[in-house]
């Protein structure tokens, strides 16, 4: 399938358009709100919430008998909320640590959800078909009205986020300061947690409870590499989420037997890997280059200093010294010839005899400057 026909399908094929739109909404909402979860070190809370949503979905279905996404999402949200509440109260009242409470609630809720699902599946009527799509998600089964529900909920969540922008910023970076300013931090915490729950449950249908946590953590972690500012981070995170959602949906629709949820997760993880390596300033590749450049510069400066201090023993600061002496003084034995060649290119040293080197006039000037500034502070 070439790009053009894919684009054509994207615009005019009902299923593909719905799936791509749904995945984009999911990516935007979870990317934006996930930023807060990551910044507040609650990445794994998303994991717990999404697993814990399962019994909520089952109970919502058992109570209402309906499979309308709004009903199921509501059930999921309530269960995710209760799970969060229990985790917090366990941590507050006992000596059990946060990670244990998370793991426990996550798995127990999920187990309970499974029990309910198996009970539902054994009911004689066939109405239950499709509930287990919440396990791994089934983007292909998204209907237009599901996408509309997701978009509505997502817009409400993002609008709320924008309204409380300043407060949530305080909550994420300095809640104590916020409290001294008189903001109701506990209430804001509850609101923000609720928004994150909404972000999670709107995505469940598409990527499923098992992988939903990745959609909360990954776009935000990728965005974090590119910027130190909250606004750009949230914007980027939402963009990454949408990009991953759409590309994952397209990939899985054009290649057979490629499940959507895992494909979206792989796409978003690829963005994370690229960001970790390539983001300017923080990225591994750049910091590797920077380290290398610094190391090289320090080595050259050390060489100049060595030559200068040797020359100080003589009347003439341009006095030549054999390379063997420099080798003795240098920390890395092998790099001496290399460094001398580089210094020669810069016109700071000159070769007097085949094995003897001396500082040039510029070299002397440079060495004096380095010594004045102190080693390693020459920037």
């Amino acid at each position: 399938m070439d790009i053009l026909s894919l684009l054509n399908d994207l615009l005019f094929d009902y299923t593909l358009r719905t799936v791509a739109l749904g995945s984009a909404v999911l990516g935007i909402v979870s990317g934006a709100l996930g930023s807060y979860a990551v910044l507040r070190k609650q990445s794994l809370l998303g994991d717990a919430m999404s697993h814990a949503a399962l019994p909520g979905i089952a109970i919502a279905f058992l109570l209402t008998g309906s499979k309308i996404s709004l009903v199921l999402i509501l059930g999921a949200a309530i269960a995710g909320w209760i799970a969060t509440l229990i985790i917090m109260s366990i941590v507050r009242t006992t000596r059990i640590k946060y990670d244990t409470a998370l793991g426990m609630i996550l798995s127990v809720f999920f187990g309970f959800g499974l029990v309910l699902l198996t009970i539902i599946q054994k009911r004689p009527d066939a109405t239950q078909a499709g509930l287990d799509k919440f396990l791994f998600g089934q983007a292909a089964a998204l209907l237009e009205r599901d996408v509309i529900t997701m978009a509505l909920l997502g817009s409400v969540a993002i609008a709320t986020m924008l309204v409380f922008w300043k407060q949530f910023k305080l909550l994420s970076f300095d809640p104590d300061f916020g409290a001294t300013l008189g903001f109701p931090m506990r209430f804001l915490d509850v609101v923000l947690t609720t928004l994150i729950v909404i972000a999670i449950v709107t995505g469940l249908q598409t990527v499923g409870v098992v992988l939903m946590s990745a959609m909360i953590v990954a776009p935000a972690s990728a965005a974090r590499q590119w910027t130190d500012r909250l606004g750009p981070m949230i914007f980027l995170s939402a963009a990454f989420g949408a990009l991953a959602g759409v590309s994952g949906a397209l990939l899985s629709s054009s290649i057979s037997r490629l499940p959507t949820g895992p494909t979206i997760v792989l796409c978003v993880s690829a963005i994370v890997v690229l960001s970790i390596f390539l983001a300017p300033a923080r990225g591994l590749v750049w910091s590797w280059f920077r380290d290398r450049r610094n190391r090289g510069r320090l080595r050259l400066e050390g060489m100049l200093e060595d030559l200068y201090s040797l020359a100080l023993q003589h009347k003439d600061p341009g006095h030549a010294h054999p390379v063997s002496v420099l080798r003795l003084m240098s920390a890395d034995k092998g790099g001496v010839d290399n460094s001398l060649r580089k210094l020669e290119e810069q016109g700071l040293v000159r070769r007097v005899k085949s094995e003897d080197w001396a500082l040039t006039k510029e070299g002397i000037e440079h060495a004096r400057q380095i010594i004045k500034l102190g080693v390693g502070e020459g920037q």
Partner: protein
Amino acid sequence: MSGEQIEIQIIASLVAVTCAIPGVFLVLRRMAMMSDAISHAILLGIVLAFFAIHDISSPLLIIGAALSGVLTVSIVELLNKTKLVKEDAAIGLVFPVLFSIGVILIARYAWSIHLDVHAVLLGELAFAPFDRLTVGGFDLGPKSLYVMGTILLINLIFILLFYKELKISTFDAGLAAALGFSPGLIHYGLMGLVSVTAVGAFDAVGSILVVALMVTPPAAAYLLTDKLSYMIILSAVIGVVSAISGFWLAILLDANIAGSMATMAGLVFLIVFLFAPDRGIVAIARRRSRQRWEFAGKMLAIHLLNHEGTPDEKRESQVEHLEENLCWKEGFANKVIKYAESKGILIHDRGMLRLTGYGREYAMKSVTDEST
């Protein structure tokens, strides 16, 4: 009870005990979520090992999967070392990727064979008795019994051999390092153990409920005891209780066994959480309320003692006066007086309060000796 049912319960109990042992250390070392990451990531290991050897029941599968668990841990640590992502985010980033690759591989290449995602994720204990080990025509029982038995043995040997090292490095990592134990060795040993256990339990209960069995019983045991050895034993007992009661719940509801086991484990935790003798919610609430009355009674006694024999004694000893002086609400003041009366601290006589001899002594002691 049929033979199959007995066998399922034995296997379930074995799985629970095997999971509880490394789980204790995960809980104590604040690495509970690592079990979540490992149990998801081993799916990829199982799939890859299956592609390599084409035999679903080979023990090599377990080793391959366990390696992928350890790999997960090292990737998480590598990611942490870059300091580019937050520590908890690293876990949340790594395992979904490995799990997704596993799911995609199954969906694309292994969909026709006996490796389906649901079974891997949810486990199906009910089928465990059908896969039997036969040697020379003799039926030696279900295979998973032997697999789990072996893993339990490995766990026990590891814990017994390195009990001291595990204990010290868990409770005082600094001391352990100073004594020359290699923290890395213990750490990776434990992670290897968790991986092997997760792989073994995976078949029976699926990847997410492995977490339930690893974390929940130790969490409950943690509220019941302060001794490591008791905690291990208690976790095992709680695990077995959850396993067997979970099995019967599943029979009763005709539901997934592993899910019921997790549900029961959660229920046991809830009971412990509420009613544990020292650390349960009820015990804490009762202690708080006792302390509240004791403190109020003490305050009242000291107040009375303070004004005894002074000109304003009459005024200060009136019940109404307490409300403004000690800022007590009316109902509360009356309750405190009743409490103090029942303890023999004072006598309530027509709106006037008088300390008894014992009450005087009690007040003196409270003032001079803070530890009472």
